[in-house]
């Protein structure tokens, strides 16, 4: 066989190259099939899974419906309670007043900020720490005197603000709480009470069966 430029390559080498490629493909398919067959799905993971998800990372179906991208519904299956009072929730941005902000950051989907198997800095969030400045730049550039000179990456990395829940950092909350003494006058959690329905215990109803099993 003669290639343009006059170089000649023996045809046998093409066959062996093809053979090598075919063998590699078969080996790869076999390897993936074996991974499925033996339930060793770690081989399909494209990177380290985040702290919250690594315990069930080989249960692909928990987050992935076939080959579809992860939807809000799959996230809500576990995180529904956390999102019940979401400060940046879908409901807020369906309001026309905030609709314009969606053009800066598409916060209607969980995967805008949270992404698995990629570089991330915490909690499955893969955006930069100055994410808040996409919409709230004014806060540190003169709009709020108390925040003058703050760095753009400090909103939640410093532990003050939580993107989804800002009940414990709003101005009203601070005004109500910051002049209190160091400890509350009554330091207590709710008591647990269980009221018994009988005065004396009944007879155990399976003791003899257990003893028979033990023999």
């Amino acid at each position, binding site marked *: 066989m003669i290639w343009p430029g006059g170089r000649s390559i023996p045809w046998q080498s093409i066959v062996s190259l093809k053979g090598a490629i075919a063998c590699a493909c078969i080996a790869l398919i076999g390897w993936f099939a074996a991974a499925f067959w033996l339930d060793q799905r770690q081989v399909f993971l494209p990177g380290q899974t985040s702290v919250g998800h690594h315990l069930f990372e080989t249960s692909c179906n928990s987050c992935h419906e076939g080959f579809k991208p992860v939807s809000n519904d799959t996230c809500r299956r576990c995180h529904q309670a956390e999102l019940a009072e979401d400060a940046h929730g879908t409901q807020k941005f369906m309001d026309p007043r905030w609709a314009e902000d969606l053009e800066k950051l598409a916060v209607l989907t969980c995967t805008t900020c949270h992404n698995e198997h990629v570089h991330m800095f915490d909690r499955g969030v893969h955006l930069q720490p100055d994410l808040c400045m996409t919409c709230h730049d004014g806060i540190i550039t003169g709009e709020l005197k108390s925040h003058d000179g703050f760095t753009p990456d400090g909103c939640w990395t410093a*532990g003050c603000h939580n993107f989804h829940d800002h*009940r414990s950092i709003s101005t009203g909350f601070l005004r109500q709480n910051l002049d209190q003494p160091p400890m509350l006058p009554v330091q207590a959690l709710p008591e647990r009470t269980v009221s018994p329905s*009988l005065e004396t215990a009944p007879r155990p109803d399976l003791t003899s069966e257990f003893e028979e099993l033990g023999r």
Partner: protein
Amino acid sequence: MKPWIAMVLALLLMLVYPAPAGGEGVTSEAVEEATQLWQESLHALNQVNCSSCHQPAATRPLQGHPDHESCRSCHKQAVETFLLGKHGVRLLEGQSPLTPAMARLPMKAAAHQRQMTCATCHDVHSVNTVAAAVDACLSCHNDAHSLNYENSKHAQLFAADRQLPRPSATAVSCATCHLPRHQVKAGEGTLTQVNHNNNTYTLLPRDRMVKEVCMGCHTAWNTATTAFLMTTWWRPILITLPVRP
């Protein structure tokens, strides 16, 4: 077939197949001990008998080690939140129970193969949650934060309540902060529930812990400054500091 070959095969089969679920390690002493604990427990006084957990329906075989599904029939909220937390999420996703060996945090080597279900932390016969609130955690967790608990003021408060069936409201255990109690409306009164979802709510101060947990006792200024100290750039140094003697 020669008799000795049959005998070897039978022995191998016994090794390969686990014993029936009901008969695992059941001795009459163990039954006696469990019965004794149960008779003094709130389970007994609330008509939860052996069969309620070990034979939930008449048609089911005797279960030696009832799983979380048995507990769920009465403790719905506790089991549902457990399944959303780190300890139970593998069960929710249809996988084998979590073992400490799978964790990224340091765990005690002797506990690596323990399987996390309700009974791993709770002594279901005594219905005493004092052990589940601290001792159960420390039987697996081996990181500096967990080990330093014993040296804290929280632990001193908890030590005063060790003889109770349930930690009192002023004791501060691991569970007080990481599996907190909260009140819900039930009819005309309120019901205290324990949130067993330790995954999202109450794992790190900067998430929701300050509002939901710390502020049960401490005021906002106290908590906010502590949480701030724990979440700034030097937090990684704090958590790697050696355990205080």
